[in-house]
């Protein structure tokens, strides 16, 4: 497949991709720190300032950075139970996102949603904790955009485990049938919690499944942000110009566990996982190519830390939701049942 429609990457846009990856990693490291801070010495999933399941996206930054570089706030994106990287790359504000993760009143959902249910209407960003079920609503956002007669697109992100769900296949069919401006992005991180894709999936590349629905399918190997950027650019351009949906599968990396607290005893290559970390690899590529100085990288990191710590402080300072308001928001008109 040619990549002719994707703009050539300049040094500045390369730094921008790296910057997004750095911000995501800094964020996930900080959430991880806060998540464990008050769960020691005995891990209790329901304890602490950040309770509940926590699915972090370290290692999958190339997917978020490469795809979202082509999107504006007017485009829509639906994410999964592992949503932080795409949220950040999409431009979702860190303060209300973090406050929601901390279950606070100033969070996007006033503490009703949590880390798997982040909704930022100003960025048309949402996520769902049910595998593959974020795809059908993405079709509807694309349907609305198409009816509005503009060139806005919707990205539906999911994992490789979702590609065996009915909702995935129904969504691909309907998107292709109605020529909707959707880009399906499959993050293949090799693992459906503890089950390797070889034991879950009948094909070695989910990109081939696109052919069954008459849409282009691309597989990006090596977790390369620039290859994602190229594939994403072509798919987004196709959708914007009325050319319909595309399926992109990216072979990415789950650097950490399925959720925090996952000891990953099922993962034979566990020790070598950090060797495949895409972030230092891309940093070094840019440093060697001369498009990035050590000072620039340090400044990138410093800015990321500043933004992330500001968001964490904001979340911690935000009040808890008022228990007397526990019935709010079931309906818009305030009637519960």
């Amino acid at each position, binding site marked *: 497949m040619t990549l002719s429609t994707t703009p050539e990457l300049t040094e500045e846009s390369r730094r921008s991709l790296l910057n997004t990856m750095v911000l995501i990693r800094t964020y996930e490291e900080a959430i991880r720190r806060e998540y464990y801070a008050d769960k020691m010495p005995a891990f209790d999933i329901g304890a602490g300032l950040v309770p509940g399941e926590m699915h972090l996206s370290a290692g999958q930054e190339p997917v978020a950075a490469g795809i979202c570089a082509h999107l504006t706030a007017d485009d*829509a994106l639906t994410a999964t139970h592992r949503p932080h990287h795409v949220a950040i790359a999409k431009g979702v504000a860190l303060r209300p996102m973090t406050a929601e993760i901390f279950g606070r009143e100033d*969070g*996007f*959902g*006033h*503490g*009703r*949603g949590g880390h798997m*249910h982040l*909704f930022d*209407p100003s960025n*048309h960003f*949402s996520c*769902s904790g*049910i595998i593959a*079920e974020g*795809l*059908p*609503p*993405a*079709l*509807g*956002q*694309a*349907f*609305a*955009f198409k*009816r509005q007669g503009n060139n806005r697109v*919707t990205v539906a992100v999911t994992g490789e485990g979702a590609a065996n769900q*009915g*909702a995935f296949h*129904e*969504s691909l*069919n*309907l998107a292709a*049938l109605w020529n909707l401006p959707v880009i399906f992005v499959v993050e293949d991180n090799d693992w459906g919690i503890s089950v390797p894709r070889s034991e879950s999936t009948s094909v070695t590349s989910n990109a081939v499944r696109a052919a069954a629905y008459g849409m282009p399918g691309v597989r990006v190997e090596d977790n390369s942000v620039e290859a994602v950027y190229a594939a994403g650019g072509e798919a987004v351009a196709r959708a914007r110009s009325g050319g319909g949906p595309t399926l992109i599968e990216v072979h990415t990396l789950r650097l950490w566990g399925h959720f925090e607290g996952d000891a990953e005893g099922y993962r034979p290559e566990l020790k070598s996982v950090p060797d495949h970390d895409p972030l230092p690899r891309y940093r070094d590529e840019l440093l060697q190519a001369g498009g990035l100085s050590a000072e620039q990288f340090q400044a990138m990191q410093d800015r990321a830390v500043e933004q992330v710590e500001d968001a964490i402080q904001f979340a911690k300072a935000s009040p808890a939701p008022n228990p007397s308001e526990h019935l*709010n*928001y*079931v*309906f*818009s*008109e305030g*009637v*519960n*049942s």
Partner: protein
Amino acid sequence: MTTAPTGTNQSTTLAVEPEPGRRKLSTAKAMQEAISQRMARDESVFVMGEDVGPYGGIFSSTTGLIDRFGPERVIDTPISETAFIGLGIGAAVEGMRPVVELMFADFFGVCMDQIYNHMAKIHFESGGNVKVPMVLMTATGGGYSDGAQHSQCLWGTFAHLPGMKVVVPSNPYDAKGLMAAAIDSDDPVVFMFHKGIMGLGWMAKNNRAIGAVPEEEYVVPIGKARVAREGTDVTIVTLSLSVHHSLDVAEKLEAEGISVEVIDLRSLVPLDRDAIVRSVTKTGRLIVVDEDYQSFGLSGEVIAVVAEHDASLLTSVSRVCVPDVPIPYARELESIVLPTPARIEATVREAVAR
């Protein structure tokens, strides 16, 4: 996504429950008219589902709409409920007002995640920042030997799960006004119409399936029960086709001096608890007639409403529901499990004898 849906919501200008007038329509035609009138003045309203286009809906919920509004706004879908109901949700999130048909309520099993985890929860999870102004209309009920997978009411299942209004009309007038209110609602509404109230030419006739309906647009507010018949001896709380059966029984027993009050709930969510309590306060005897399964459902809920209010009100409590068995195929068996007029009548007689 939008914090304020862009639909031209003008419900405040509409009449609320006007006089019925003289024109008569079937329930199916009344529903079609409500949808049509909304579509005519709000571009964001569209209809989508299986066979809603040229066929006009398997139970005639959309007859004629495609002729007036075309295939761009009256859209036949693949047999792919998860995809198209989810599509409706996404379109609603972006400010459209979809009316999506799930052909039979029984089919919810293939798409319930979109309905209860997405349609019903997005508003809550977003802290009220994302609205889902969508109508999911679906056919319910048995009585014509369609078997265990095509005859269920299931409204109690939907009503059990928070975040959906659940509307169940019993007659043409209410069907039109409730459909208008459902389309106007900023919240998701499950609109469950019993096949037996639609006035279809190919099912057993039911004289209350055709009734007076104003031509003008109007709303029947969601959440207000209707006193379908006033009485003093016993209260029947019911809904949908069972309202008709209960009224038939009430008329018959009137000649014997038994005075039956019939409350048509019109919606499960919100549930008009005041109307239930008001009537039972008067009669002291409560019968719930519900074509849904008996256990863990609406009938127990209605009784609990009264018991929690003041259990001493209740001289007599009974229910006429589908016993906890799938709907059988054979006519002789199905007619035993459904809340037929004969079962209702026997239950009223027992109640007033207490």
